[in-house]
């Protein structure tokens, strides 16, 4: 005789339910600055790259509309301060948004534990059976885990939902990380721009992309050379496209006017 599925599992068996919520948890934990490198550093390196590309694109296009160095410098500088505020606020907001979602998930899991203890017990059995526990040992393990509410919640959050505990930086800290990343890129780019008006900003922004890519790859223990070259290459691709397409449009409008 087939056992009817409890409503908690929503027409799935226990392992199906575990797989579904685990996938949900994985998505939740990877959307924003992940756990492999500190959120502050991830925000800083991301923001540094974004800022560098933004400056590169603006510089590539502004030369078509602004014709004096001072005006161009002022325009890019003021624009990048606004950009810094955006990156700071946006990064912090993403962190808060993520935290809100995690809190909602953990509250929901707590409710499940309090109101569907038998189903939670079944889920634990499936999880620990898959780890090689069976028979009386499995029952004992599940009994021990079920005994302490806080410990049970930790196990369910980590093993069922696949979430990590005590590993995220505070959203405000992430925002400040992003602001620092922006600021350092601005500093490098504008110093180069001031020193070498012709190509300084290009050099500064590409150096920032290279530096932040190196830092991120180093921290994640990835290969640094491909990381630097790929990121610089993507930046150059975007910048070149803007420059040459505008060049094309200018030429086109001149010949057809």
């Amino acid at each position, binding site marked *: 005789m087939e056992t009817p599925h409890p409503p908690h599992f929503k027409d799935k068996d226990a392992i199906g339910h575990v797989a579904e919520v685990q996938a949900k948890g994985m998505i939740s934990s990877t959307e924003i600055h992940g756990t492999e490198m500190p959120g502050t550093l991830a925000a800083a390196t991301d923001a540094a790259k974004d800022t560098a590309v933004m400056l590169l694109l603006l510089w590539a296009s502004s030369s078509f509309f602004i014709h004096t160095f001072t005006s161009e410098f002022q325009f890019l500088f003021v624009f990048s301060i606004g950009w810094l505020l955006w990156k700071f606020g946006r990064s912090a907001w993403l962190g808060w948004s993520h*935290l809100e979602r*995690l*809190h909602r998930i*953990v*509250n929901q899991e*707590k409710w499940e534990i309090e109101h569907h*203890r038998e189903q939670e017990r079944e889920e634990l059995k499936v999880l620990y059976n898959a780890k090689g526990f069976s028979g009386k040992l499995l029952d*004992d*393990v599940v*009994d*021990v885990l*079920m*005994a*302490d*509410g*806080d*410990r049970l*919640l*930790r196990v369910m959050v980590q093993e069922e939902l696949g*979430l*990590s*505990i*005590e*590993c*995220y*930086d*505070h959203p*405000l*800290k992430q925002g400040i990380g992003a602001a620092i990343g922006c600021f350092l890129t601005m500093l490098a780019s504008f110093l180069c721009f001031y020193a070498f008006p012709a190509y300084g900003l290009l050099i500064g922004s590409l150096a920032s992309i290279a530096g932040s890519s190196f830092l991120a790859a180093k921290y994640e223990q990835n290969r640094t050379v491909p990381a630097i070259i790929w990121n610089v290459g993507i930046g150059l691709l975007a910048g070149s496209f803007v420059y040459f397409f505008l060049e094309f449009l200018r030429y086109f409008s001149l010949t057809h006017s």
Partner: protein
Amino acid sequence: MNPSSAAPPSSTPAPPVFEEFFELGQESVSPFLKIDSRKWGANLTLKASIAAAFLLVGSFVLSRFPVTEPLSYILLVLVYFLAGIPSLIESVEELSDFDINIDILMTLAAFSSVFIGSGLEGGLLLVLFAFSGAMEDAVTAKAKTALSSLHKLSPTLATVVQEDGNLIERSVKDISIGTTILIKAGQVVPLDGIVIEGISSVNLVHLTGENLPIRMQEGDTVPAGGRNLEGALTLRVTLTSADSTLSKIINLVTQAQESRPVLQRWFDKLSRGYALTIISLSALFAITLPFFLDIPWRGVEGSIYRAVAFLIAASPCALIIAIPIAYLSAVSACAKKGILLKGGITLDALASCQAVSFDKTGTLTTGNLACEGIEVLEGDGDIDKALGVAYAMEKNAVHPIARAILNYVQSRNIPQVQIKDFKSIPGYGLEATLNTLGQTEPVYIGNPDYILSKLPASQKAVLMDRTAQIQESGRLLAVLLIGKIVYLLSFEDTLRPGIQDTIAALKKRRWDVVMLTGDHEASARRIANEVGIENYHADLKPEDKLRYVTNLSKEKGLAMIGDGINDAPALARATVGICMGKVGSGAAVDAADIVLLHDSIDLLDWLIEQAKKTQTIVRQNVGLAVGAILIASIPALGGFVPLWLAVVMHEGGTVLVGLNALRLLRT
């Protein structure tokens, strides 16, 4: 019984990560944030308010010079960002629930001000409003910790004795009535039950406030929350965790807290009416003024401009600051004297009280037992030798009476006595042998029941009579038996210094003074007579205390002063709950409105005076604030005074109420 292999290792238990988060629900204790990162989330609303205040000052300064005026707008935008967005979110959410209140009025006024060129005024409104919100958050956070310590006292695990004799730890939620559980020495009883095996002393100080352990043996009922001091007890569970004694107390505190904020509800109701009236009037003026006053709808002389000016001028800027600043000043003045007020509004409630009730142990008395003396039951005895023996036996015991004996003997410089074969009989007392001049004699110390079993019939009757006499006088007793000589040591709770003067001062104010205690009649009568309280009630359970407190609070307004967990529901329900900070249990401190940090009960009279003074200043401030609103809003609507003058008058009211409130700091 054998410990099962399934029992979890107790050596390295993982610290709880979710408990605090669920209790407080705050970002600063989020289990997902790194521990060193959590402090970033503490008091964020307050930090944002402070930052917004500084930015507003900066914006005001920069706006004075034409060249820096654009920069002042940058700072102003930041002010609106920090202080305005939270208000805007709250207002939109409340509006979507069709809940129109003063928050919406303030937000509407602040954001509307931008459209008539008074962005700075709007910024000021938002900053004041943000400060007010931050204070509210702080008070709410404090209130949320109220039940935290009660929950911490309540164990979440119990050691279950399985049918095969193995032990396993289970969540108390999974334990049903009839289950057998084991309580080891030093553990807190997790569930109510009947003793089926073992004898031990259980201290119920956290439940009853009385610091005297009670002997529990087969057939006795042990309440959850008591601490098992000596031997192991095996209980058959009689109540599930949802119905346990501790859960009942937690529920009583919850109910009491929820039923309390009458004043808050009154303010909410008033603010809702005020907000709705002002918003409706503004809309009405904007639409109808051109029909009566021959003015256009648009332009600086138009009805929309005047309606917005009216909305800003009528926004309760001074009203919002009038009450909190007065309470804040009073709170600071009290803090200087070691009195912690949880929200200044409790002073208002204190000023309305006409009765005060005291708990006995730990409040009228210090809660520490003191040895009153030693006497020989019959014949001649050697008092110094007896005290030496009592000291030698009690120096290793964990019991309030043991501490009292040690203090008493130490103060009398009694020579040391050597004893051997020391043994503790859980729930009864201690025994040992004494070697004097080559002769060995047994010695016993403990409660009268314990010693009675070792006496001949003739001595038994004498001891029982004397025991009854001492207990009738409200004192406690320990009996020492050396050979055949019986010694009686009597103890009593010590009165708090200066308590008689405090009671006299309260009576002079014509306040009703009552003592409510869980202790027995004789002890209550003795203390009541000594401190000068005529009206007292003894043998009260927490729910009895709560009933008395509820009635007195309704009839006259009651200030309840206590310290134990058993007082927590009454402290929460009373018009004002006052708790002793040093001796008070965590739950009582959390449930109370006022905490006497140094247990300085002698400051009670000063506190009542301060409460009355605060009430007077709050009334003056409300009058001033309402006056300022009327003076500013009506001429602004009629166009009789320019907007800048209306705003100056409006803000002048704010400054005045601030200065008036600061007078409270001088006390």
